[in-house]
């Protein structure tokens, strides 16, 4: 058993930390306040290889691993959860299924630009009436002989308004239930495909969360991803990996809140001394730190299993469940320790608290994670 990061992983942390502190943190409050997607940050991240971390160089990736990817999402989210999820959704939910299920032609066509960050990726599974019960897909894909025709809509799609490539699930045979779902690669600009409403959210306000609308959308035959009827498997395995990304985001949010709170508590004086001198608060902070370290081990362990091609679904679910609940708990406490100032937008902890909530919801709610964990337990 080896708990040491490799030199490569340590350097990735150093690099992303420097990048995040210099390029991402200064924008975080404005991105949140203005609900602005940080396009300029995405361009910079592309330049440094952050949009294709765990993929081989032959497809244009950086050639690193999923622990480095987890570290990158963590470090970005430490200062800006919006930026963290842009990378996570792009990498785990779009690049990975194309890499894992795509034909050589699909990989050659889409991966170089995606992994270089020239194009941005998104993933469409959730529908107005198919959330946790993803099998209730109402978006239909009909085989028209020389193309597929998609009709329906998706909601809550991360990166929706800015993505170029979408991995989309649609029902090809309703009578077969889960086995009637197929996956497709849809490009922005395909006839009949448009972006609908942009959501106004509690947190991750800079992230573009939109509706996708398919009205007789023409998808080329060769854009079927994987086999007909295997879309549910594509979606579920993609979400297993995505949970490592969201767990990393939650971990980063929690760490970021803890770090700013340590600084605040040292500086803030009440009753003639720094509030960091009060043991009641010290003990609370010790508890938060412990939970964060436990989350980190779960997250890196799940990423390590993915890198080693070991089964990791329940591990990713446990990592996301625990890290997300930790992020919510830690940020709520950190707002408390900031007192009245923590409730204002002059300090970043209220944003972190709002951002933390989504990690308990998207890419499977905490309840879904428990279903996955229990499912493996009572298999």
């Amino acid at each position, binding site marked *: 058993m080896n708990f040491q990061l490799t*030199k490569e992983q340590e*350097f990735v942390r150093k690099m992303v930390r420097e990048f995040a502190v210099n390029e991402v943190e200064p924008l975080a409050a404005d991105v949140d306040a203005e609900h602005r997607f940080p396009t300029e940050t995405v361009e910079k991240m592309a330049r440094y290889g952050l949009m294709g971390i765990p993929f081989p160089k032959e497809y244009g990736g950086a050639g*690193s691993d999923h622990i480095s990817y987890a570290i990158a999402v963590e470090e970005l989210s430490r200062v800006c959860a919006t930026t963290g999820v842009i990378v996570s959704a792009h990498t785990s939910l779009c690049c990975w299924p194309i890499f894992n299920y795509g034909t050589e032609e699909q990989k050659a066509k889409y991966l170089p630009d995606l992994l270089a960050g020239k194009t941005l990726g998104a993933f469409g599974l959730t529908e107005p009436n198919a959330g946790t019960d993803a099998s209730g897909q109402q978006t239909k894909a009909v085989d028209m002989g020389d193309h597929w025709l998609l009709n329906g809509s998706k909601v809550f799609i991360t990166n929706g308004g800015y993505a170029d490539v979408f991995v989309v699930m649609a029902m090809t045979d309703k009578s077969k239930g889960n086995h009637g779902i197929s996956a497709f690669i849809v490009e922005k600009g395909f006839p009949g495909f448009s972006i609908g409403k942009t959501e106004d959210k509690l947190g991750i306000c800079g992230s573009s969360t939109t509706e996708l609308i398919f009205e007789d959308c023409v998808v080329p035959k060769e854009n079927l991803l994987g086999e007909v009827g295997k879309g549910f498997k594509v979606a579920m395995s993609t979400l297993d990996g995505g949970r490592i990304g969201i767990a990393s985001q939650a971990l980063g949010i929690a760490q970021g809140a803890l770090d700013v709170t340590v600084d605040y508590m040292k500086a803030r004086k009440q009753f003639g001394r720094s509030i960091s001198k009060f043991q009641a608060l010290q003990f609370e902070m010790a508890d938060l730190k412990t939970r964060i370290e436990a989350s980190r081990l779960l997250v890196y362990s799940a990423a390590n299993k993915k890198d080693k091609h070991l089964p990791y679904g329940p591990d990713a679910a446990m990592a996301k469940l625990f890290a997300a609940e930790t992020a919510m708990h830690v940020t709520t406490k950190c707002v408390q320790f900031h007192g009245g100032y923590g409730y204002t937008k002059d300090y970043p902890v209220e944003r972190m608290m709002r951002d933390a909530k989504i990690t308990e919801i998207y890419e499977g709610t905490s309840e879904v994670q428990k279903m996955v964990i229990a499912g493996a337990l009572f298999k």
Partner: protein
Amino acid sequence: MRIIVCAKQVPDTSEVKIDPVKHTIIREGVPSILNPDDANALEEALKIKDQYPDTVISVVTMGPPQAKDMLIECLAMGADEGVLLSDRAVGGSDTWATSNALSAAIKKMGHYDLIFAGRQAIDGDTAQVGPQIAEKLNLPQVTYVTEFAIDDNMKDITVKRSLEDGYEEIKIQTPCMLTAIKELNAPRYMSVSGIVHACSSEADIKVWNAKDVEVDLDTVGLDASPTNVYRSFTPAPKGKGIIIEADGVKEQAKELLINLKSKHVI
């Protein structure tokens, strides 16, 4: 074109502490970083490589074995090769002895067109090693470079040199030695693919000892160094200043006089 960049791994001295007994910098618990001015030197070399991709950049440093991490960082930013001169025989060298050792290493590295160094390292702050290397290699040099341009002939260079009260514009030809200041550019970050390469077995990082670079051992190391550090100390922090706010210069002067008198200065 081959560019050699001289770099140094230094303690991150944003909060420097000095051992009150030994008068040396306390290094424990202080992370080591690529010296900031050297990062500017490397960035300028990388910008040349961006424009002329067949440019080869070699980074040379002298230091303990862990200075290899700094070379990994340089390769991860885009340098092609790193050379670490590491030997107990060169330990404790002052600037004169250091430039002897580095000049020998550079001679060993073979042909070069340009040597770029940072103005000075943040630990010693001498700004001497770069110019001394230029002298020992018999190269023309320009220090405090704040703007740099090279002609397509890869020979003619125009630089702007920062002075205390202005600038000099200087034309110089390769081979030459330049030292960079932070105003020259904004160093790039490492890239993820660069890190993967720099940490792999394919990374071209050589570790040489004093014998490898054929330096006269009587000219390197602590004993050969003519500089003796008499004393190092942390200067006592200055008292907090005050800003006198009053309407007009006369009022301000009056306030100042009252202040000085009340403190019995005048």
